[in-house]
């Protein structure tokens, strides 16, 4: 009990996750089917980008090569966040069935239990599509490689994963109030994912407010790519803004944790 080493403290979560992974591998054909369908969806979306951009030279200041990089970065970040946090959207089921109460009976924080209650390995296929797009994007764009370019890339990828992860937590926290509101939050989660693969420069002002800054989707891929390629910025979005991706992730996590906390208080009836 007094053992406070990392290994001892993470043992409960590792035990659950290991069991989840084992369970997914047990139903092998199911898992392969999931992998394949997830791969197909990723490819279709990549094809969509290609179809749209093949017919125009550039959109919002990005050409096909640049948009492939935006798509890839956004998709990798989203898929990795989805892999580790995506199942947070099962919270309404737990709330309805009353099984969330079981989490209360275990000596770990609720949110950590929810996050580590499952892991969706099939998202790896989707992340694979994203990785291919990133590699292709990096090789066909004219990039002035330097330490800071690599730093920007790593920083924006990590921030992107964190931002999308926070998005899932935010959506879960909101379920405490909405109960049947998964549809409403999905509009922002999936809408946000889609928005992240698009050039934010073409958005009108309300859209820029919602998906550019409030849910900082533009920071997941578009802005870092603009900075990386040295492209001119657009209204409200100067070229250097790509460096602020970590701030966007912090903001989203703040929003997510606040929503989660308020949601839990609401559930327990301790005042919102």
């Amino acid at each position, binding site marked *: 009990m007094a053992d406070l080493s990392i290994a*001892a403290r993470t043992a409960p979560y590792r035990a659950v996750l290991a069991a989840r992974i084992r369970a997914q591998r047990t139903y092998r054909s199911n898992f392969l089917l999931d992998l394949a369908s997830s791969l197909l969806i990723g490819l279709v979306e990549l094809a969509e980008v290609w179809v749209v951009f093949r017919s125009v030279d550039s959109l919002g200041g990005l050409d096909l090569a640049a948009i492939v990089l935006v798509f890839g970065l956004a998709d990798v970040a989203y898929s990795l966040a989805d892999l580790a946090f995506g199942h947070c959207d099962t919270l309404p089921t737990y709330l309805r069935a009353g099984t969330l109460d079981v989490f*209360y009976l275990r000596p770990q924080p609720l949110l950590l239990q929810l996050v580590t209650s499952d892991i969706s390995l099939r998202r790896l296929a989707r992340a694979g599509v994203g990785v291919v797009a990133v590699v292709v994007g990096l090789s066909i764009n004219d990039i002035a490689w330097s330490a800071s370019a690599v730093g920007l890339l790593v920083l924006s990828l990590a921030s992107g994963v964190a931002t999308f992860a926070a998005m899932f937590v935010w959506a879960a926290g909101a379920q405490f109030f909405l109960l049947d509101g998964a549809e409403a939050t999905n509009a922002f989660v999936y809408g946000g994912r889609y928005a992240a693969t698009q050039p934010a420069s073409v958005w009108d002002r309300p859209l820029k407010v919602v998906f550019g800054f409030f849910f900082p989707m533009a920071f997941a891929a578009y802005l870092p790519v603009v900075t990386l390629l040295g492209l001119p910025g657009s209204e409200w979005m100067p070229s250097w803004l790509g460096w602020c991706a970590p701030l966007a992730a912090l903001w989203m996590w703040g929003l997510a944790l606040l929503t989660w906390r308020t949601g839990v208080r609401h559930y327990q009836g301790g005042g919102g």
Partner: protein
Amino acid sequence: MTAIIETDGLGRDFRVRDGLRRKTVVAVDDLSVRIEPGEAVGYIGANGAGKSTTIKMLTGILVPTRGSVTTCGLRPVADRRRLAREVGVVFGQRSQLWWDLPVRDSFRILAAIHSLTPAVERARTEELVERLELDEFLGTPVRQLSLGQRMRAEVAAALLHSPRLVILDEPTIGLDVLSKQRLREFLVAERQAHGTTLLLTTHDMGDVERLCDRILLVDRGSLAYDGTLAGLSRTVGAERVLVVDLASPVPDLLDVPQARHLGSEGGGLRQRLAFDPDTVTAAQVLAGVSEHGEVLDLAIEEPDVEEIVRRVYAGRR
């Protein structure tokens, strides 16, 4: 000695939508009880009387609206994570097991969740497997278990970390007679071996009779009775019911001396008569019935929890 559960003026309201307006529903009101370590307490009352709400306040799931609550010397909401190591809860309707994993795997995960050392984990698992006879389905995924098997596994899961206080919410609901019996025997033995405190909600008189030495009866959120089962039966009158099967249909037996006709089935082939054993014997009632027709079979029913609860409620209104 410190109490294991102590509540003082505990209350909880819910705000519910009623059409366009919102109104306040009082689920638990002014509940003050003290339960000592090692007691076995039956917490009974009609559906919606506030039993589950009380359990949730005791375990830190719900924040009380009024009053105070201490469980195992801890404040349930503020000290929830520490309290989780002291309390085990069995919900009859909500599984704590992983439905797609073998029972054994669920136990391993729970042992990690409660940071049991390998030696403790092995010893406790062995003890529970033996006492609850789990070995035949230890390798079976939970979703393939029968209800009786699953409940035994649930109880083992809740008790794996050797909690001082075990709360059981309708543990025998839906179980067959044999499964109920096994579960009760286990709980009696567990209590003897470890001095575990038991608090259970139930609709089953057998649970109360065999497991509990104290009863708390709640009515509309507040305590209506606190004492022994025998005392409760005395308070509400231990009226019994004689069920008779007759050879041929007979008009409702409304005029049997000192017995009250409760109902008839099969056009009068089976009739139910209530009588008070303090004023009349079953034989006398039977004799009264025999004047009207030939009795093929008979049974005498003791009052069940619902019946006792109904009588207590009726006396309060």
